C-alpha cells in the first residue's frame, strides 16, 4: 500500500520553482517560514508617513474581489484585502504561502485545514474569523448574483467551522489548482471580505470595499482617483509604511509618463510596451517587469469555413514568423511562445521548449505543405477583426496579414470599436482575431477555460474530447511531474489541431520613481504597497 505523504505534497504545492535555480525548498520550509511572522499576535504599531501617488492607466471595474475580471482592479483590491493564501516572490521562486491563515494542513488529500491568525480585524472593526472565511467562500461558490470565479470552488463540498479560528474545507476530489484558487491575488476566490460590509452595502460593496489589508479604502472619484489610507491595525508588524496611497485614474499613458517625469506622481501600475524605451532612458525611475503568466495568439473560427479545415489552420500556425512579430508588434520586448504554458509556471514550463520539437513555430515550407493539403486551393478571403485594445492594439493584425498572404490567405483587416469587438467575438462572428490570455500562475487556468469544448472562453468553438479528458485528469493529479506531463499532452494536441496560432509570452511592466523604496515585484501583475516607503 502506498502511503500518501500529504505534508510533502503540500510543501511542493507551496513552492513553485521559478527561474534557473534548481534547488527545491526543503520539506515544509515554506510553511515554517510563512508562519514565523504570524506567531506574534501583539501587533506592533507602525509609524506611517508619506503619500504615494501612482497612475493606473487601465480599466478598474469594481473593487469587489469576487466580481472583478481585471488584474488592474486586483492591484488595488490586494492592498485592501487579504486572501487565505498569498503569492510571494524572491526573484527566483514564486510561492503560495499562508496569508490570513497561520497554518495550512492536509488531513487527507481532499481535506484542508486552515488555522487563522488570531486577532485580525476587518477595517470596520468586525473580527476576521472562521465564520467570515466561510461567508466569503460561500459568496464565491454559490452567492447571488453568481461570482464569475465560482468555478474555482466548484469542487468544494463542505466548509466546516471547527472553532472560531479553524476552518476545514472538504473537496470532492484532490484539487491541484487550490493554491491559486485560494490566494487573494490572481485567484480572487480566496479573498476574504467583511460579511458585515457585504450585508450593509450589497451590490455596492465594490465601491465600498472592507477587508483586512494594509490599507483602508477612503474614496473613489470617477475618472479621477481612488484613495487609500494606512490601516494602523494591520496584522503584519511594522507595516504598512505609507500613510496614504492615491491611485490616479488616467486614460492616457503618455500623460502618466509625463507626470512621472515631472515628479507629479511616483509611478505607474502598468507601463505600456511602447513607452518602455522612454522609461529606460529616464534616470530617476526604475522599471520592473519580467515575462509573466500569459500568451498571445491568433484565434481561428473552427465552426465555419474556411478554418473548419484543420490543414488550413495548421498552415496558419506554421506561417507566422514569430521573430518578426516580436520585433514589429511587441516592440522587441516579448518572448516567442511555442505552447501556452508560460515561463513563470515552473514545474510545468519546459525550459528546453525551443529545442524540444514541441509546439508551433515558424516554418514556411511546412506551412505551404499544409496549405497544399487544404480543401480550398483557391485564394481564400477571410475577415480579421481588430480593435484598439489589448497591449499593442492593431499592430498584431497588421503584422500577421502579410504573413498570411504568403500562403494564399487574404486577410481583410476590419477595424472595429472595442465594445463591438467583444460582442462579435462572444457571438463567434469572425474568421480571425488576436487575443492575449493572462493566466493565473497554473496550467489549469492557462488551458482549460480557453480551449475546453464549449468553454466560456472558447470562442473559436474547437471541440476535442481527448483534450478535455487530459485536462480533467490533470486537475485532480497532485504529483507535479505527472500533472505536467498530462498538460503537455493536452498542449501538444491543441498545438497540432491549431484552433490558435501561438505568438508570444509578454513581459508586464511597472515603473516607480527612485524615491519609492521597498517595492517587492511579483510576476503576477501585482502592486502590493505594504512594504513600500518614500525616501
Amino acid at each position: 500500500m502506498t502511503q500518501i505523504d500529504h505534508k510533502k505534497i503540500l510543501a511542493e504545492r507551496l513552492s513553485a520553482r521559478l527561474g534557473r535555480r534548481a534547488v527545491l525548498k526543503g520539506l515544509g520550509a515554506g510553511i515554517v517560514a510563512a508562519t514565523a511572522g504570524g506567531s506574534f499576535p501583539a501587533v506592533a504599531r507602525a509609524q506611517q508617513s508619506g503619500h504615494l501617488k501612482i497612475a493606473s492607466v487601465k480599466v478598474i471595474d469594481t473593487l469587489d474581489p469576487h466580481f472583478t475580471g481585471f488584474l488592474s482592479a486586483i492591484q488595488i483590491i490586494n492592498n485592501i484585502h487579504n486572501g487565505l493564501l498569498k503569492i510571494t516572490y524572491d526573484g527566483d521562486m514564486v510561492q503560495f504561502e499562508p496569508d490570513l491563515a497561520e497554518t495550512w494542513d492536509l488531513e487527507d488529500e481532499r481535506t484542508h485545514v486552515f488555522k487563522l491568525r488570531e486577532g485580525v480585524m476587518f477595517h470596520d472593526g468586525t473580527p476576521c474569523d472562521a465564520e467570515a472565511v466561510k461567508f466569503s467562500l460561500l459568496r464565491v461558490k454559490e452567492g447571488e448574483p453568481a461570482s464569475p470565479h465560482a468555478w474555482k470552488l466548484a469542487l468544494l463540498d463542505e466548509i466546516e467551522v471547527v472553532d472560531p479560528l479553524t476552518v476545514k474545507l472538504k473537496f470532492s476530489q484532490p484539487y491541484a489548482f487550490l493554491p491559486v484558487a485560494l490566494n487573494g491575488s490572481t485567484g480572487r476566490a480566496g479573498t476574504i471580505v467583511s460579511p458585515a460590509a457585504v450585508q450593509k452595502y450589497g451590490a455596492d460593496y465594490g465601491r465600498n470595499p472592507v477587508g483586512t489589508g494594509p490599507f483602508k479604502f477612503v474614496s473613489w472619484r470617477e475618472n479621477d482617483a481612488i484613495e487609500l489610507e494606512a490601516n494602523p491595525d494591520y496584522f503584519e508588524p511594522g507595516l504598512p509604511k505609507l500613510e496614504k496611497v492615491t491611485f490616479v485614474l488616467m486614460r492616457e499613458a503618455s500623460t502618466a509618463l509625463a507626470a512621472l517625469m515631472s515628479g507629479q506622481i511616483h509611478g505607474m501600475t502598468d507601463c505600456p510596451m511602447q513607452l518602455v524605451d522612454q522609461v529606460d532612458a529616464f534616470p530617476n525611475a526604475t522599471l520592473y517587469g519580467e515575462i509573466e503568466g500569459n500568451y498571445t495568439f491568433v484565434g481561428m473560427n473552427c465552426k465555419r469555413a474556411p478554418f473548419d479545415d484543420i490543414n488550413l489552420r495548421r498552415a496558419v500556425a506554421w506561417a507566422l514568423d514569430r521573430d518578426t512579430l516580436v520585433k514589429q508588434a511587441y516592440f522587441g520586448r516579448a518572448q516567442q511562445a511555442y505552447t501556452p504554458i508560460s515561463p513563470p509556471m515552473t514545474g510545468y514550463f519546459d525550459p528546453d521548449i525551443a529545442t524540444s520539437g514541441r509546439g508551433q513555430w515558424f516554418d514556411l515550407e511546412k506551412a505551404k505543405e499544409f496549405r497544399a493539403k487544404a480543401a480550398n486551393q483557391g485564394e481564400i478571403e477571410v475577415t480579421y477583426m481588430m480593435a484598439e485594445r489589448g497591449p499593442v492594439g492593431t499592430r498584431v493584425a497588421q503584422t500577421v496579414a502579410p504573413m498570411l498572404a504568403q500562403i494564399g490567405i487574404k486577410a481583410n483587416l476590419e477595424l472595429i470599436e472595442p465594445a463591438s469587438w467583444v460582442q462579435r467575438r462572444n457571438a463567434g462572428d469572425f474568421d480571425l482575431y488576436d487575443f492575449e490570455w493572462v493566466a493565473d500562475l497554473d496550467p489549469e487556468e492557462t488551458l482549460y477555460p480557453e480551449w475546453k469544448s464549449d468553454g466560456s472562453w472558447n470562442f473559436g468553438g474547437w471541440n476535442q474530447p481527448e483534450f478535455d479528458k487530459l485536462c480533467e485528469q490533470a486537475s485532480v493529479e497532485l504529483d507535479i511531474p505527472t500533472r505536467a506531463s498530462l498538460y503537455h499532452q493536452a498542449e501538444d494536441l491543441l498545438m497540432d489541431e491549431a484552433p490558435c496560432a501561438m505568438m508570444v509570452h509578454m513581459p508586464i511592466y511597472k515603473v516607480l520613481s527612485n524615491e519609492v523604496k521597498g517595492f517587492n515585484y511579483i510576476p503576477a501583475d501585482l502592486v502590493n504597497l505594504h512594504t513600500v516607503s518614500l525616501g
Partner: protein
Amino acid sequence: MIRQAFGKIGQTLVVLFIVSFASFGLLKLAPGDPIQIMLGSEYSPEAYAALSAELGLDQPFWTQYAQWATNFVRGDWGTSYVARTDIFTYGFTEALPVTLTLASFSLAFAILIGVPLGVLSAVKKDTIFDAGAAVFALTGTAFPSFLLGILLIWFFGVQLGWFPVMGYVSPWQDFWGGIYHMILPALTLSTYFIAMITRLTRATLVEVLAQPYIAAARARGEPGWRVIWVHGVRNIALPLVTILGLQLGTLLQGTVLTETVFNLPGIGQMLTSAVLGREYGVVQAGVMMTALLFITVNLLVDLSYPFLDPRLRDRK
C-alpha cells in the same frame, strides 16, 4: 416678451426631446452590449438574464426610452451600471464643474489674448506684427489640440517643470492651485479660439477704423488709445459674442480631448468612458447636460444683444 419667453422654452423642450431621442436611439443601434462588457466573459446565461432584467435592458426599446424620459424629467437620472453612483450627482456635482471651469478659463484666455493681438494687428496693419499675428492665427487654427496639449506637457511640464501636467484642483476650494492646474489645459483648448478671435478682431477693427466717426474723433484731438479702445474695440463685442455662442459646440468638443490628455474628470471623460462601456444612462445624462448648456448659452447670447448694441434696444 412673455410670449417670446414661452416660445423659447417650447423650442428648448423640442430640441431636448430630439437630442435625447437621437442619442438614445444611436446608442442602442451601435453594436456592443453593456452586460457583456460588465460581466467579462466568464458568465452564465442566468447571470446575463438576471442582470439584464435588473437593469431593465430586456425591455423593448420604446419602453426603455419612455422609462428613461419619465425618470429623467423627475430628476431621477438613474444609477450608473459600473460606478453604481447616482448619475445626477456624478454629472452635476462632479463632472460638470470641471468642464465649466475648463471652458471658462479657455474663453477668458481666448478673449484676453485674442482681442489685444487682433487690435495690435489692426493698428499695425501690414507690418511685421500683423504678419506675425496672421501666422500665429493660421497655426493656431490648424494645430490639433491633442498634439498641442502633448507638446505643452512636454515643454512646460516635463522639460521646464513649470506647470503640473495633469489633474484637477477645484478653484473654489483652492483658488491659486486651481488656476495653476488649469493653465496648460486652458491654453491647449483656447489656442484655436485665440486665433479665431485675433482674426475676427482685426477684420472688424480695420473696417471700423476706416469709418468717418473715427476720423472725427481723431480730429477732435482724442488720444490714440482712447480712439482705438473706446470707440473702436467696442464694436467687436457683438460679432465676438455671436461667434462664441456659435462656436460653443467646438469648445465643448475640444474639452473631450483636452480632458483626456490632461486627465481632468469632466463631462468629456465621463462621456468617453460611458460610450466605450455602453453606459446608456450616463451617456444620456452627458448629452443632455451638454445640450442644456448649449441652449442656455445661446439664449444668453440672444439676450445680451440689446446690451451690446444700443441700436437693437428699442426694436419690437
